[in-house]
C-alpha cells in the first residue's frame, strides 16, 4: 500500500515538473499552433482535404507526444540523476524500483494528458475542416481514438526505453540520444525488413546484413505496429487481431523494459 502511495506521489510530482518545464510548455504551444494550422494545411489538398486534415493532426499529436517523452525523459529522469536531485528521493525509505515506477507513472500521466488534450483539439478541428466540403467521407471516430491510443503506446514505450538507458548511463544526454536512436530504428525496422524480404534490391543481400536487420527487428521495439493512423485517415476497418497483438506486444515489451531498468538501477552506484 505504502509503495503505491509513493509511486502516486512521485508520479504527481513528475507530472508537475513536466507541466512546469519551459521546454515542454513551448512544445505544447507549438503543437497547438500546428493543430490550428490544420485548416490551412488541408486546404491545399485537391481531392481529400478531410483525409489530409486527419493525417496532419494525428502526425502532429504523434510527433508532439514523442518529443515530450524525449525531453521529459531528459529533463525529469536523466537530468535528475545527473544533478543528484533524485538522490534525496532515493535516500528516503523507498526502494529504487518504487522510485523508478513513480517516475514512469508520472511519464504515463503526462503523456496521457497530452495525447488526450491534443486529440481533443484535433477532434474539434476536424468538423471545421469538413465545413464547406461536399462529398466528404464521414470521420471514423472509433479509428481516430484507436490511433491516439497507438500514439500513446509509442510514447510510453519510448519513455520506458529512456528509463532503461537512464539506469545505464551516467550522463543525461546519452539516454536522450540513445532513445532518439531507438525511435528512428524502431519505427523503420519493419519497413526495412519487409523491403529486404520482398527481394526488390538490385544485388542479393549479404547474409550478414540480413541477419543484422532481423536482429534489429526483434531487439528494438517495433513501433510501426502501433501506427493505426492509416485506418483513421481512410476509415478502414481495423483488424481486431492486429490491435490485440499490438496491445499485448506493447505491454510485454514495456514490462520487460521496466524489469530490466529496475534490475540495472538497483545495482547502480549514485556517486
Amino acid at each position, binding site marked *: 500500500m505504502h509503495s503505491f502511495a509513493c509511486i502516486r*506521489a*512521485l508520479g504527481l*510530482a513528475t507530472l508537475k515538473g513536466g507541466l512546469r518545464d519551459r521546454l515542454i510548455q513551448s512544445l505544447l504551444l507549438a503543437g497547438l499552433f500546428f493543430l490550428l494550422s490544420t485548416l490551412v494545411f488541408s486546404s491545399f489538398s485537391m481531392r481529400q482535404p478531410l483525409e489530409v486534415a486527419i493525417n496532419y493532426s494525428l502526425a502532429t499529436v504523434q510527433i508532439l507526444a514523442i518529443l515530450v517523452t524525449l525531453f521529459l525523459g531528459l529533463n525529469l529522469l536523466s537530468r535528475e540523476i545527473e544533478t543528484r536531485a533524485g538522490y*534525496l*528521493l532515493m535516500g*528516503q*525509505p523507498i526502494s529504487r524500483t518504487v522510485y523508478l515506477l513513480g517516475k514512469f507513472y508520472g511519464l504515463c500521466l503526462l503523456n496521457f494528458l497530452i495525447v488526450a488534450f491534443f486529440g481533443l483539439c484535433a477532434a474539434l478541428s476536424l468538423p471545421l475542416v469538413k465545413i464547406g466540403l461536399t462529398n466528404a467521407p464521414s470521420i471514423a471516430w472509433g479509428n481516430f481514438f484507436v490511433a491516439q491510443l497507438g500514439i500513446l503506446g509509442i510514447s510510453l514505450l519510448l519513455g520506458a526505453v529512456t528509463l532503461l538507458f537512464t539506469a545505464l548511463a551516467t550522463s543525461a544526454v546519452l539516454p536522450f540520444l540513445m532513445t532518439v536512436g531507438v525511435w528512428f530504428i524502431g519505427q523503420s525496422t519493419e519497413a526495412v525488413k519487409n523491403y529486404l524480404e520482398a527481394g526488390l534490391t538490385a544485388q542479393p543481400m549479404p547474409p550478414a546484413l540480413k541477419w543484422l536487420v532481423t536482429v534489429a527487428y526483434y531487439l528494438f521495439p517495433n513501433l510501426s505496429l502501433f501506427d493505426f493512423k492509416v485506418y483513421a485517415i481512410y476509415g478502414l476497418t481495423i483488424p481486431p487481431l492486429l490491435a490485440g497483438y499490438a496491445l499485448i506486444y506493447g505491454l510485454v515489451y514495456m514490462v520487460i523494459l521496466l524489469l530490466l531498468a529496475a534490475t540495472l538501477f538497483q545495482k547502480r552506484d549514485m556517486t
Partner: protein
Amino acid sequence: MTSAIKTSKLSKQYKKGVRQQQVSALLDLDLEIRRGEVFGFIGSNGAGKSTTIKILMGLIQATNGQAWLFERPVTDPAARLHVGYLSEHPHFHDFLTPLELLHLLGTMRQMERKTIARKSEELLGLVSLSEAANRKIRGFSKGMVQRLGIAAALLGDPDLLILDEPMSGLDPLGRHLVATIIRDLQRQGKTIFFSTHIIHDIETLCDRVGILVQGHQKYVGSIQEALYPAGNLFEITVRMPEQWAPAQTILGSLRLLWHKESLYNFELTEAEISSATQAVIAAGGGIVTLEPKRRSLEELFLDLSGKFGEKGQSDLTSPAS
C-alpha cells in the same frame, strides 16, 4: 543499548578510467555509533567520508563488509525510515515549492497528510523559509537551498540524523542554526552522525570522533581523549612578587616557557601540580591560569596522517586559521 549505526569491515572499491583501475575509497571500516551520541567524522576530501555516508543511505553498494542502521542492513530501504539525511550539496526538484517537496518526502516516510502539513510549517519556520514556502525552489539562493535541506532532513522526526558536511555551504547564520539544531536534538536523545572538515564544529558539538585518512580509519574515540591524552603536560602561569627567582623553590626544576615582568609560565606534569601550586602560594605568589597543554585537532590529524604537507591536508581547517 542498541547501536544506531554499525559497520563491519565496510569497504568500497571503484573502477576508474578506461583501464578500470581499482581505486579503494574505503577499507575495512568498523564503526559503532550508540544511540544518543553525536559523532563527528573527520577527514580530508576524498578520505571516504561521503562514501561511508552514501553506503549508509543506500546510494552506493559496499564492495565488501556490511552496515546496519538500527540493526537493519542498509540494503533494506526500511532501515532509513527513522533516518534523516542531508547531502553535501543538496539538489532538489527545483520545479517544486518547498511545501510540495516536503509533502512528497513525507509521503515516502509514511506520514499522515495532516502531520506533514503541520511539520512542514513548523520546520520551514525553523529554517526561516516560511515566506518562501510557496515559491519554486528554482529561484532559491544557495543558503536557502541548504536550509531547505535541513528542513527536509528533519521532516520525519528522525531518530538518527546523517549530515554530510552540514556546515560547508552555510553562512555564519546558517552554521549557528545547524549547531543549535544539533544541540537541541542531542538534548532530545537523538543520534547525530556528521562528517566535516571544519575542526571547530567537532570540538564544540561532538561526543566522539572518527578520523579517516585515505579510506583507512585512524582513530575512533572521545574527543577529550584525542585532544588530551594521558600523560599530557600542563601549563601554569603564575604572578610572583618582585625579586623572586624560580631557582629558590621547587619551581626551579620546571621548564620555564616564558617570563614577562612578574608573570611566569611553566610546563609541568600532572603529578607536579600540587607541589608547584603550594610552592607558589608559599612564596606569596598567585596562580593566574592552570590548563592542560592541548593538542590541536590539526596536530592530531597530521600525526595520524603521518605525512606532513601531503596534498589534501590543507582542506582540514579551523575557523581560527
